[in-house]
């Protein structure tokens, strides 16, 4: 089954990372690289990215007509679409046998924080 793992953290989580000395930041990035390589080689990791901070986010809110379909108008605003305590810092798409395997992968994520697991559905 395919799942998306969304890696999130609180403001403090990201601040703590930024406050790391350069060496420690490099080491943390190296651990994530290694995790990605290992899971890629094992065929579990299909793709993934780190995301730029939410300060770079833009939200496009489509407007809907009477029938519920978009009416061509949209509201474009600065910032992420939800004001959550935790922000998404990256994601990966994985292919594993079941939820337990996905949970095991999430638990092995070397950067800490919070991981949300969502099964993928067909578009």
């Amino acid at each position: 089954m395919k799942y998306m793992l969304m890696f999130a953290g609180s403001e403090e989580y990201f601040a703590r990372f930024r406050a790391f000395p350069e060496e420690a930041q490099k080491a943390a990035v190296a651990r994530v690289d290694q995790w990605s390589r290992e899971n890629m080689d094992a065929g579990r990791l299909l793709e993934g990215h780190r995301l730029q901070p939410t300060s770079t986010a833009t939200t496009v809110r489509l407007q809907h007509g009477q029938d519920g379909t978009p009416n061509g108008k949209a509201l474009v605003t600065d910032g992420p679409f939800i004001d959550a305590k935790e922000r998404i810092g990256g994601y990966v798409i994985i292919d594993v046998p079941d939820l337990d395997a996905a949970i095991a992968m999430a638990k092995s994520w070397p950067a800490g924080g919070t991981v949300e697991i969502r099964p993928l559905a067909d578009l």
Partner: protein
Amino acid sequence: MQEAVIEAMEHWPRDGVPERPDAWLAAVARRKALDRIRRDVNYREKLAAIEAQPVAGYVEADDRLRLMFVCCHPALSREVQVALTLRAVVGLTTAEIARALLSSEAAIAQRIVRAKHKIVQAGIPFRLPDESELVERLDHLLAVIYLLFNEGYLTTGGPEPARRDLADDAEWLAALLTRLLPTEPEPLGLLALIRLHLARSAARFDADGNLVLFEDQDRSLWDREAIAAAIKLLERASSFGRPGSYQVQAAITALYAEAPSWPETDWTQALLLYELLVSLDGSPVARLNRAIALERVAGADEALDAVDALRDELAGYHLFHATRGRLLEQLGRTDEAADAYRAALPLTSNPAERALLERRLSTRAPRTRSAAGPAVKGRSSKSRSRRARST
């Protein structure tokens, strides 16, 4: 794989006949027969007779255990785990579950439907946990069983203060688990704990249905044979040399049960066991219950300090205020004690607990230390766990 679980969950309680000849569905059918019998008059005897039959082979046992692990998967909410376990493992119908959990049939049905969707769509597997995750996953099973027991033993809703049906279901599940996982000590610890509580059933309520605190119970009404048997179970559990929270709770309950009288309890030993419990399960409720023994060993002043330190975490828990009330009473601070009892009242919905608090409020008088017992008492260890595990 997931679909097989859903299919079974779906069909057997309704049809009573397994659709497929798999061994585990046969197990379910046997359980169904058991379920009919258990509603009969001689429930306990017949239950014991059927339980004494050996589990019909490795595959059946294995699959039933797998089913329990699916129902209690951590990706499902605790209330869903409870409903699914009652449905798929105990074999109750939706209507019976609704009655047992004091909910509506529609709400339970919806809860189960949502759970099935999640099992299929999120890919919750029908398999036994790896050895590395067994203890953690087992904890969910034990928590669900103990929650069912507590709900039956001292219900949080409805007019009845206790419902033996649910408590007996929990005992059955705990016993089943000890047979399915014979090399794990915590199921034995839980079963011993449940049986130690059940052994005191006859003394827990007086003729008028009032809750009687552990310290005030008529010990001649206790089932000594059952207590001795439960302690044997606990000894078997401790022979594994892997202490856990349920074993320690059972040990504390056994300590109380074995004492000739409440004041003659070995309080130093009790305090040691509570310390061990706090180290295994650092929940604030475990620390609250430690105050029971601390009061006996070090005095009410020190116990009150320990309890007051938990205010931030436990202000919404009725036994926090009830415990403070008892300690304040012993220190002669009766007005403050009354305030504490008043704070406890709106926080519990159990009729017997409410009545007890009201009695304390109406009869409160300054007590001398020698006449007064310590704080929460008796069923404290179970309440501890209920709260500790439900968070």
